[in-house]
């Protein structure tokens, strides 16, 4: 991999990392999915920045699956798309969660009004 390729890869990795962390912080990406992306991206950045490690990984991957280097770009796009898809899943599941909680609370409030608990003001 050329030095320019390493720099581009590391910058893209950092951008992905910042995006994922911000999504988790805002509750738009479930932390269980996010932690996989964070660990994966951190590992990729470490590999990119350690020349011997990068050589070993490149040799191993080419020996297993010889693909043109443009394939790396496709993998990067897939990765960003995957984060986007998981974000949409998280947003949907958050809506279901809020709905479930709201229904539960309203049900409990109805019960509480019909059968006041000891100590509750009437």
């Amino acid at each position, binding site marked *: 991999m050329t030095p320019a390729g390493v720099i581009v890869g590391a910058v893209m990795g950092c951008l992905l990392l910042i995006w994922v*962390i911000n999504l*988790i*912080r805002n*509750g738009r990406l479930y*932390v*269980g999915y*996010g*932690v996989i992306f*964070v*660990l994966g991206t951190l590992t990729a950045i470490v590999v990119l920045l350690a020349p011997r490690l990068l050589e070993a990984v490149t040799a191993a991957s080419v020996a297993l699956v010889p693909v043109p280097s443009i394939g790396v770009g496709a993998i990067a796009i897939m990765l960003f798309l995957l984060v986007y898809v998981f974000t949409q899943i998280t947003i949907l599941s958050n809506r*279901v*969660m809020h709905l*479930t*909680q709201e*229904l*539960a*609370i309203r*049900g*409990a*409030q109805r*019960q*509480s009004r019909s*059968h006041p*608990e*000891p*100590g*509750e003001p009437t």
Partner: protein
Amino acid sequence: MLMPSPGRRSLIAIPAYNEAATIRDVVGRVRASLPECDLLVVNDGSGDDTAALLIDSGAIVAEHICNLGYSRAIQTAVLYAARAGYDRLITLDADGQHDPQQVQALLAQFDVEQLDVLIGSRYVVSRSYAGVPFGRRIGMQLFSRLVAVTAGRRIYDTTSGLKVIGRRAFEPLTQWHFIDFHAEALVYLMRLGFRVGEFPVTVVERRHGRSMYSTISLLKYPLKTLLMLLLGVIQADLTRKRAS
């Protein structure tokens, strides 16, 4: 013996998921030990007879139509307590590990120290995790020390399900998201300036049902908690900056 302040409304909340073997007994013991407190059971989408056993048990039941997990069940209880105007929320496990008779002492300490969160702690006296399985012991030590580093005070039992939460802490606990209301929630609250303490309690081993931690979750839990703990530090600092 110290007594809790009179006139303050308290809600006991028990999150329950497939706890048919113990829930009736736990509800009965809570009602006998703490008749002045209201009782809410959050049935978190149980697939067994938990819901049926709660009918006519004397507890108010918040029914999740599907399983949302422990932290969301606690969050439902916090939301309910906030809307109903309770002063304190006490969380207890549904597996019968906690003795409700210890809650009075916990409430008294909570009032005396004017805390926002008081944790019923299994390890604050011994300050060691003897008898805890090796993997869990390492995790407990790690998160206890991480809380000390990031929040400035060591909490020995970050995973206790027995907690007293004051009204002031209701809002932040529903404004952000947590994994299990453990180390990450404590750090978040402490970084926001809330007062968190520990009080010694004893627990009995669970005799029925399964722990909410499976083998896989024991691998995933530390990673998720670590990430959320670090994000909690950032989020709390951002919140404080915005507020000031």
